[in-house]
């Protein structure tokens, strides 16, 4: 269930499984060859000055103090493991990926590639926490971690307290599932005494984004809405709110959240909002509509008497992300490892859609 959260925020289901949601988000990262990601940072582990500790990190559940540089790092929830791995630290345990993992080994391709570079595959692979049914606290405890990283997560207070009983736990700063990939890297990195290295990592990814954008001048400045629209099954559409990490990634790609979405989101602290299909004309200011689906999705939307009224649908400036698979996993829970892996393919889709905007 958690995995499905990533792309399918139906209010009802979520309420029931909100806590569980955290589990689904296991990202993995394995840099591809095109990215310089692991190269610049591999040596970083040893450079951390011990005078960085003790370090105190403030999150929504209070202060977490890490007394000395952690040797055994465990990560729970989606994608947090990509940060230590990108920094050259092999975690003792990470979340098992169940969403978007096409080869079902429990590790997403970009994570696997980065682990491979660190010689941490096969028998050396970190323990995979199966969070399908909630965080397996006993398994986490069995890895004897010095620190537990979850800067991007939906931890509940109860989960946080339980984890904190095992080791100092780093939670999200303010909103569940509302931590940007940059903040995830910096916060998780800081807990490892590698904040400068994490910053270098973020700068590197930002530079890659800037290069990729420069090659696609049509993309920047367009407005967008990121939604979950299933014409066959629902009377409401779900729109990811501006605090959602995947929405933040798209803004990093030079697009702007459409004013209509911002207005609908208001002061929400949820990562999605809902809108009745009868009112989809409120999305008239959307240049590029992003949704999940398959090859038939755009035609289905265009044929629908209500969704067909959205200008972006009419002109086909729609980015359809595959319903499952690594491409969606890399972008719905973006990390410093997943972005370089997916960047060109992702931007190509946005470019194609942006070219259709008048």
């Amino acid at each position, binding site marked *: *269930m958690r995995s499905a959260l990533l792309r*399918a925020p139906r209010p009802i289901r979520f309420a029931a499984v909100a806590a569980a949601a955290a589990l689904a988000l296991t990202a993995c990262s394995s840099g591809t060859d095109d990215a310089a990601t692991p190269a610049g940072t591999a040596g970083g582990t040893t450079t951390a000055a011990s005078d960085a500790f003790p370090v105190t990190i403030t999150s929504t559940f209070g202060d977490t103090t890490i007394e000395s540089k952690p040797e055994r790092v465990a990560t729970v929830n989606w994608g947090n493991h990509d940060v230590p791995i990108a920094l050259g630290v092999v975690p003792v345990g990470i979340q098992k990926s*169940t969403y978007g993992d096409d080869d079902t080994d429990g590790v997403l391709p970009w994570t696997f590639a980065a682990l491979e570079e660190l010689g941490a595959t096969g028998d050396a692979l970190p323990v995979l926490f199966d969070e399908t049914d909630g965080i397996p606290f006993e398994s986490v405890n069995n890895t004897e971690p010095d620190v537990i990283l979850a800067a991007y997560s939906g931890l509940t207070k109860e989960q946080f307290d339980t984890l904190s009983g095992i080791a100092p736990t780093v939670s999200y700063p303010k909103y569940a599932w509302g931590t940007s990939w940059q903040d995830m890297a910096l916060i998780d990195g800081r807990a490892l005494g590698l904040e400068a290295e994490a910053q270098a990592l973020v700068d590197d990814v930002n530079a890659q984004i800037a290069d990729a954008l420069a090659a696609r001048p049509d993309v920047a400045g367009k407005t967008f809405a990121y939604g979950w629209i299933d014409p066959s*099954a629902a009377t409401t559409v779900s729109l990811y709110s501006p605090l959602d990490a995947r929405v933040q990634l798209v803004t990093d790609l030079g697009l702007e959240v459409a004013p209509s979405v911002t207005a609908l989101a208001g002061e929400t602290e949820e990562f999605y909002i809902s809108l009745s299909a009868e*009112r989809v004309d409120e999305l008239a200011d959307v240049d590029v509509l992003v949704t999940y689906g398959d090859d038939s999705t755009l035609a289905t939307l265009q044929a629908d008497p209500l969704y067909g009224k959205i200008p972006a649908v009419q002109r086909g400036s729609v980015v359809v992300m595959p*319903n499952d698979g690594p491409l969606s996993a890399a972008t719905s829970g973006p990390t410093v490892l997943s972005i370089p892996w997916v960047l060109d393919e992702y931007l190509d889709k946005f470019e194609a859609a942006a070219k259709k905007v008048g």
Partner: protein
Amino acid sequence: MTLSTTATPADLAPRRPASARPRRALGLAVCALAVVVAVVCSLAFGSRVVGWSDVVSGVLHPDDSIAQAAVASRVPRTLLGLLVGAALGLAGSVMQGLTRNPLADPALLGVSSGASLFVVLGMAWVGLTTLTQHIWVAFLGAAVASLLVYAIGSMGREGATPLKLALAGAATSAALLSAVSMVLLTRTDVLDTFRFWQVGSIGRASYSDIGQVVPFLVVGAVLAVGCARGMDAIALGDEVATGLGQRVGLVRAVGGVAAVLLCGASVAIAGPIGFVGLVVPHLARAFTGPSHRWLLPYAAALGAALLLAADVVGRVVARPQEVEVGIVTAVLGAPVFIAIIRRQKVREL
């Protein structure tokens, strides 16, 4: 049998005031009016506020405006609400009549969860995708769950008491739903398809979907009406019913098939919607008394009106979102459920 040979069904039926027939006829007219009002509200009110001229044009010949497209999209939704509401009202009446259990309801007795589980299994293991396929596995699941609950509830000397049936239904329902979760947890791809079933919804129904379930609902309704006289007799107790010449086993079998058809088809297209089947027969009996020949048409009309009303409420309370009708019926139905238990002390019908 201890019955005197001169006893007739008329003698055994509860005495009613002489005015009962006109009163019941008038009540049926009131029910019909309630249905009409519910239909008009369902067409007129939604997340989008539209004028009455748009409502009329949207139903008759929608133009290109979103207002009229919105109204047009409410037409199949309303039609499905009528069908599913009537089916649930009938199914609840039949289940309560056959089991003499005032708490019988497709959702409470595990029939809906049986249908749900089989649909999930069909999606996960057999790769079923079309509504037609779902209907058949839903029937199978509804039938299996019904038989299971009835068998469990009938264990012991005193047979299927209301309390035992309700407990068996609740326990079976819980077990079936955790099996549903078990499948979904490991198969997120199935979860996607299954999502909208988790709460009942009549939105976004297409005419072709509706056309596929109508034959099953019609057959179910005809069988239910065919059992009316038999259920009247069963209400007096199995032994009396047998003495009256009713073939109790046959009535139960045909009525059971009717309930499975009505519930299974409803669940297949709209998901498990609770409490309508429970509340409506009680509401109807207040007008009709126990005679099933009157109860069934009342229950069909009231079920349709209640479901549509609940759907309209779900559309307007949460603007600009919508609340699925299954949520609304649960919110409205739970207090009634408690009231029935308190008032009746779960006695047999």
